[in-house]
Every structure is written in structure tokens, then in C-alpha cells.
């Protein structure tokens, strides 16, 4: 889904790092972590107090340990491999939050299979799916075992399935816009455009500023200026998401039913335009929350009344949401939430 002519431009170091910190907090927080105190770390010599990082074990054909290493603490000299059923215990013993055990030669085998199967003209996403399938084959053959098996039961979609799902999220010849403000100025921003079936533009705040000229400083008004400029310079917008930094951070970490719907209702988040799948998702969120704890809602009945049209909309479009999930065979939002949660936990270790 990525064009080989992809353009990525308009970010300075701060706006790019800010964007990454929203969606991949562990990547940014890793930069603030103290380095290990040695050029040749060994886990036995490290003061390990928490269970983080990945334990990697390479076995030969007789299941003899050829190598064990901890991604945060280095070489592991004393390790007994007790079989694939004991990975959790092994991870706990060596203070790791994940464990990967593979047979010697598996990495090379994956490389050979991928090189053999990838075809000229495959885009990057299609290429990644080939890699994923090769890894899955090794896993199914018992040559590559992981703990926990977070993705173990998730079916690998075909490129056609992914394309159809993307059609719902970002249709061809359309743009997706996210702008996050800090006080009066954009803290970070992102414009994605899909053209010829592929994402061909990733633009940041500098480029957006060039399209809009000076902004007024009130984000609830400025979003319209940005929307118009993007429509003029890039493509019709399929989804625009505008909010403030604190709200964005809170919502991305919020698992309370109704939080997104409530934020949209009180305009802490402006979704403009609102494509069907987002409206449905918001409606579902609102209904879920209302069913559980409607009495605790801030704004009470008034907020519910604002969401009523969404709930009505939900009834008419529920098949669309179901189709995305059915197409992929899994719920991508649920997976994203789980991934972000995991990233947050990793980041928390400092």
C-alpha cells in the first residue's frame, strides 16, 4: 500500500518525534533510557530488577543451546532449555517479558523463502505479508517458538483483503488528516494521501503551514482552514481528526467505553469529515458506554442526545464495520489497542 514514489516531507525533528510519541511511545521513550553500562554486557553481571526485553535462544537440531541473549542485558551464559512449554518460566527466570526460541538456520531459511516468493511489482505491504507468511511457516513447523503468542491465532490476510480494508479507511484519491495542537500552534500533524491504490504522500506541519499560510491560533476554527488547504493542494479529505495534545494522549490511552464518543460530542476532538466507519465506531463506543454506565456520564442526557444520531447511524451501517473485521479476520482496532498498551508498558520501564 506504499508507493515506490512515496513523498515524505514537511517534518522537523520535533514534530516528527512528537508524532511518533503518540503512536509508538516506546520508540521515543527508549531514547530516554539510560544505556547499559558496558560495551559487552552479560545478563549475569547486570543488575536486573524488572522483567523487560526479549530472551532469544538459538538451538541446534538436538535442541542444544547454541546461544542465549537478552535484548536489554546481553549475553546469557547459564541457560537450560526445557522445551517449548517452559518458555514463560524461562522468561521469568531471566527477567524477560518475551521469549523467542529458534532453530539454527531458521533466519536464513526465512530469507531464502522470501527472496524466492517476492515478485517484481509487489508493494512494500505485499512484501511484508510474504515475510510474515514465511515466519508463520517456521512457527507452524515448530522451528520458531515465541512466548507470549500474541499474534499466534491471528490469520494472515491476503493483500486483497488488506486493500479492501484500506478502501474503507482511506479510499483512493482521498486524504487523511490528523492535526494535534499544543496551545495555539500545531504540535504535530500528518496528511496521508492515497493515489493509484497506494499511499503516495506523507506530509507534516511545515508543508501544511505552506499550504495554509498563517493560522489564527484557535484550533477549533483553524481546522477548517487546514481542511480547505489540504483539499485544495492534496485531495478531498476522507477523515480529518483535530484535537489538542492532552486530549490525544488521553484518548489513545483511554479504554473506558464512551471516551471517544464523549470527546467528539463536546468537541474536544473534531472529526471532520466523519466517514462511515468512524461514525459507526463512535456510535458503537457510545452505545457500549451507555449500556454500562450511562449514569456516570459527564453531560448526562445532553451528551446522550448529541450521540443519538450516531447510534441511529450505527444501526444502518453496522454491516460495514462487520465487513472490515470479516475481511481481515480480526479486529484491527482491537489489535492496535493491545499493541499500544504493550508499548506503554514497555515504555514505563524507563
Amino acid at each position: 500500500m506504499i508507493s515506490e514514489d512515496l513523498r515524505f516531507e514537511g517534518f522537523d525533528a520535533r514534530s516528527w518525534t512528537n508524532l511518533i510519541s503518540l503512536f509508538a511511545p516506546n520508540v521515543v521513550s527508549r531514547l530516554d533510557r539510560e544505556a547499559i553500562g558496558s560495551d559487552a554486557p552479560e545478563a549475569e553481571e547486570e543488575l536486573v530488577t524488572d522483567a523487560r526485553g526479549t530472551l532469544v535462544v538459538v538451538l541446534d537440531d538436538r535442541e542444544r543451546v547454541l546461544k542465549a541473549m537478552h535484548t536489554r542485558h546481553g549475553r546469557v551464559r547459564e541457560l537450560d532449555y526445557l522445551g517449548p512449554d517452559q518458555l514463560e518460566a524461562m522468561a521469568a527466570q531471566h527477567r524477560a517479558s518475551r521469549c523467542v526460541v529458534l532453530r539454527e538456520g531458521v533466519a536464513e531459511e526465512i530469507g531464502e523463502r522470501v527472496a524466492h516468493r517476492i515478485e517484481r511489482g509487489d508493494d512494500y505491504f505485499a512484501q511484508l505479508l510474504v515475510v510474515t507468511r514465511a515466519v508463520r511457516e517456521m512457527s507452524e513447523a515448530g522451528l520458531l517458538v515465541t512466548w507470549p503468542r500474541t499474534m499466534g491465532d491471528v490469520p494472515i490476510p491476503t493483500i486483497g483483503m488488506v486493500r479492501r480494508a484500506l478502501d474503507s479507511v482511506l479510499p483512493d484519491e482521498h486524504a487523511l488528516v490528523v492535526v494535534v495542537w499544543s496551545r495555539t500552534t500545531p504540535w504535530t500533524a500528518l496528511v496521508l494521501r492515497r493515489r493509484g491504490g497506494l499511499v503516495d504522500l506523507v506530509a507534516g506541519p511545515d508543508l501544511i503551514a505552506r499550504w495554509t499560510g498563517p493560522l489564527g491560533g484557535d484550533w477549533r476554527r483553524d481546522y477548517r482552514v487546514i481542511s480547505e488547504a489540504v483539499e485544495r493542494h492534496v485531495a478531498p479529505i476522507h477523515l480529518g481528526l483535530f484535537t489538542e495534545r492532552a486530549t490525544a494522549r488521553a484518548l489513545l490511552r483511554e479504554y473506558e467505553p464512551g471516551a471517544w464518543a464523549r470527546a467528539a460530542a463536546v468537541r474536544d476532538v473534531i472529526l471532520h469529515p466523519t466517514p462511515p466507519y468512524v461514525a459507526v465506531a463512535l456510535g458503537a463506543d457510545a452505545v457500549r458506554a451507555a449500556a454500562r454506565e450511562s449514569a456516570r456520564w459527564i453531560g448526562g442526557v445532553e451528551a446522550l442526545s448529541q450521540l443519538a444520531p450516531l447510534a441511529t447511524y450505527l444501526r444502518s451501517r453496522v454491516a460495514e464495520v462487520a465487513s472490515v473485521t470479516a475481511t481481515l479476520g480480526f479486529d484491527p482496532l482491537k489489535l492496535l489497542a493491545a499493541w499500544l498498551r504493550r508499548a506503554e508498558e514497555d515504555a514505563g520501564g524507563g
Partner: protein
Amino acid sequence: MGDREIPLLSGAMHYWRLEPAAWRAGLTQLRDLGLPIVETYMPWQVHEIAPGEHDFGAHDPQKDVGAFVDLAGELGLYVFVRPGPHINAEMTYFGLPERIVYDRACQARSPRQNPVLQPFPPRMFPVPSYASRTFHEEVGRWYDAVGEVLAPRLFPAGPIVLLQVDNEASYYFRDAAYEQDYHPDALAHWRRFLERRYATVEKAADAHRASYARWDDCAPPERFRAETPSELAVHLDWAAFREDLITQALAKMRRRLAKAGMKNVVTVHNFPLGEQGVPMSSTAIESVVDLVGFDYYHARREHRTIKRRTLYLAGTHRVPYAPELGIGAPAWFTPLANEDSLFTAMTALAYGLRGFNLYMAVDRDRWYGAPIDPRGNPRVEAGTWKQLLSAMDRVGFHALARRAEVGLMMPREYARLSRATSLLGALSPTVLEAIGGTPVEACREDSFGLTGPIQVLWWKLVARFAAALTHAGVPYVYVDGDAPAEQLEGLRVLVTPSFELCDPARWRRITTFAERGGTVVYGPTMPSLDLSARRTLFEVPSHGRRVLIDTDDDARHVVDELVRDLELARPFPVRPAPLEATVHEDAARPRVLFVVNPGKARLEARVTVPAPTRLEDLLSGERFEGREEVAIPMAGWSCRMLAIEGAVQAIEGSGEAVAS
């Protein structure tokens, strides 16, 4: 350059990615930062409009590299051009034409004759073979076209003063020992390599414990299979061959550049991150090009890596130089803030970097964070870079030197063994080192009947000595095991890991160093086997100290003894740990002191000075002074560049401090 001395400082700007109308503003701002040279790649893919047909501005003014070079010259800038063929530059196919990467005759091969894919977005693609004759012929035609534009613009007729030969020639980041290259032309090269090394097929067979009847029988290893020392030779040869393949390819490209009229200009090659794991010999390549340097893209927390890389350049190469010192990064790289880039630059300077190319100085597609935007407007970050460059200019930094009396040797044969025994395929030693691990991270633990897993232990031993020398405040450098003898001049102590298996040629350089009065610290084992695992007599170094290092304390004990016995210099000691200080001097006296805080916590540095001294922070203008000790506040992950203003004659009393 002619009668002018200019520091080796440049900034990158990609003409073909910018509107020609923005070239003048970009170049002017780049010059105003304090950079005397502008650097640009030349992408083959962009200029080739049909096979063998090129546009250098006749059709598209944005491709008019001649006009860009001329404009730079008009603005008083020199020019550094990097015409590939591989340029990366975050371009699809790394700047190569699509027809080249999909030409089977050009493609590198896996053991099963599959292509080898470069993994980065926006498109994985089959990488070229550094051995392919077809590829080299195509490169030659590209260079001919380049030469027509560049040759008339070479110094002194024009402003071009530097040329880079290829780029980060590390097998396109698919450099694990048995990933490539099994292209028929590479296999022919392998057999020629063995012929050069052994002269006769019988000797090669003897070394490999194989039954070769003719050179064609010499099949390369496709995976690691050794269980005993005698089975290691073919793997060590394969690892050495892969270095040689790159060296020979770069030599061929340089000759071809010269044939295309591009000669009598300084040539450069750059190593990617993870250079200790990379199957390239920096010393061999420096016999092919004039300057070898490393590319720097680091977060602040990577102080030790920045230090190690720079000390290696300082101890092994002609000029410690960074052909790419990152400001910003590509989107698919670890995100880096401007503070990371600045800390990296200053820390590298602290440990001895003398020249760099700021990559990117002017922003462009598929990049973020450059100090000048694509329209030629300076961003806020430009201010700090201008201050740094101004500070370097003020003290004449390019002409200063940092003295080190101790060399830590990186034995190349052990590094090759590490590469040969790495177990994670595409997660090669280079990749592991580049992402913050070590090049021995994934090596198998087998001992092969020797003292221990040499492929892991050598690195551990070097690391322990590095930590001990740092703790003692003794300046040191890393010396490649294959470094020419002149790199050992000025050293008083050479520390080298040694095990049963050893390269006799390297050992002879060590014993020669000892015969000339140097002290050699080696161990844990006196070598006894050559690289074919044959019993060989190794001379015990005179003045040698054989040491057994099992713990960090052992290394500290040895270093303490060396400091005491040899009275090793420890200039401007600083405390508390983990603060470090480095001193740069000219022929007369110390001129610049760097204080580095590699940790996250804010600390107050207390620098012991030999006489009452005043220090001025060359970037902030703050002044610090003291009679025996100078206190300097240090933010977390920070580096100060301080001018040593000379002994202060009167700090107290009148309140006037007079620098002498």
C-alpha cells in the same frame, strides 16, 4: 586547496529534490552556517531517462547538476560529489535504476541462487552483486556520463574537491556471512582469492582440510559447520574473502572514475553504523581511496558507541572523519531530536573527530530535521549548529590533536570469526551493533576445543580494558589489527586480546612494536596456532605483559599498574563518574577541553587543572575558573566545548583575572 587551508567540513543538499529556484538560498544559508563545502549525491536512477541515456538538465532543469556545482562555486563553496552507484539517500532502489536491480546478471545471490533483498521501505529490492561483471560494466557507462559533467568542474578548474566512491558498501545491509554473495562472478573471485592466498590448490586443500583437485573444486561454505579448530580455516577465509570482494570492487570503481576523467581529487568511502561487524576492511579500503570515515546517527544515550567509533577512527585512520554526521534522519529510522544530533557531533569531536559532512544541512523529501528548510530558510536549530561551527573555527579545531598513549587492538581475525559464527541470519553483527547491541551478540558459544569461545571473548576483553582505561582517565584509541605500522607510532602501550588461534602477520606487528620499546599487554593465551590451526611458533613480545582478565577489577588492576609503572598521562582528570574529559592541543599547549556527561543525571563536574585556569564554554560563552579545580555544571547527556584560556595569574584579590 591550493594555497588555502580549509577544514574538512561540509553540509548535504540534494539539488534534484529541490526547486532550482531554491538552490541559491539553500547554498547561501549552508555557507552562512560556516560550512565551506556543499555535498551532494548524484542519483543514477534520476539522471538515466532510458538505458544509457541521461538527462543532466537538458530536459529537466532540476537535474542540472552542472549548474548546481557552478552556482556553489560562484557562492564561494567547494563541492563534494557522491555519484554512487549505490547512494541510498532513502531512494527507492537506493538510487539505482530499476532495470539494473532486476537484471539477473547484476543481482547478488544467496546460497540457493535466489536474489538477496534489501529490506527497507518503500520497497524491498534485489541488491546488486559487488562481483558482477555486468554490473561493473553498467557502472562504467554511468561514470562515463557523470565524467562529462563533473570532470571539467574538478579542482582547480572548478569547485569539486572531494569524490566518494560508492556508499556504505556493506552488501546493502544484507551482510551476514552466508547471505551472499554466491553469484558466479563472486565464486570466481573466491577462487582467485584462494589462489592469491595459497598459491597452489594443494596448499588450499591442506589449509581447509579438503580434497580439492583443482581450483574449481573450492566450494565456499554456505553455513557454519566447524566443530574443531582445524575446520575454522575455510570460514575465516570466507569472511576475509568477503572483505576483499568489497575492497576490489571499490578499487575497480575508483579506477573507472579516473578513466572517466575524475582523478586528482581526494576520494572518500563511508562505513555505515555497526562497522565492527561489517564485512569490510577499513584499512584495506583506505589503500584504495584517500579517506575512510564512519556515518554517525545516534541518540544521546549512545555515548559509548559514539566514543568507540571515534576512537577507532582516531587510532586506525588518516583523518577521523564522518562523511555523514546526521542532523535528523529518515522516517524509518529511530527518531532523533536535534539534541541527539548535536550531542553526537560534540561527543565525536570530543574524542577526536576532525571533519564531518552534516547530513542533511538542507531538508528534503524522505528526511526530517535538517537545520535549513527546502526553500532555503534557516530553522531554529540552525542557530546551535552555527555556534558549533563558529566555535570550531575560532580555535582552529581541525588543526588540533588529542594525544593517546594507549592503543586497544581489534584483532581482525577474531572479528571474522565472530561474523562467521553469528546465528541470526539477516540480524547480522552489523545490524545488531547498529541497533545498540554488539557485533558478538549472536555468536555461537562453542569453544571448538580452544580456551573458550574466542568469537565472544575477544570483544569482552577489549571492552573491559576500555572501561578500565576510562575509569583511570587514561586517553586511548582503538587500533585495527590490520592497521599500518605508522598508526602505532606515538603509542607507548598496546593492549590486545590473544588466544591460541592468531594471525601470525598481526603478531609480528605486535612484536615489532615491542622491539621498538612499546609495552604489549596480551592474553589470556599465548598464541600457538596460525589461521589454518597449524602449530606455529609465535615470539613472546619483549616488555610484554601477559594478563588473565576474568573480571572488570582485573583490568583495572592492570591499568593501574601501567599508569604507575609507565607514568601514563592523565590530563585534566574529572570527577565524579561517569563524567569524562578530553583535551585537544596544538604544538604549544592544550587549547580545548571537552567535558562529557554520558548519563541522564545532572552533575557538577570537578576538573583538576595543572595550574590556575580559566575555561570558556565556546557555545554558551559561560566562564569557569579555578586554581586547582574548576567546577562546571553539566546537564544530563551534555557535552561542553571549553577553550582553555591559559593559566590565570590572579583569580582572587582584585577580582581581575588575567589570562596568559
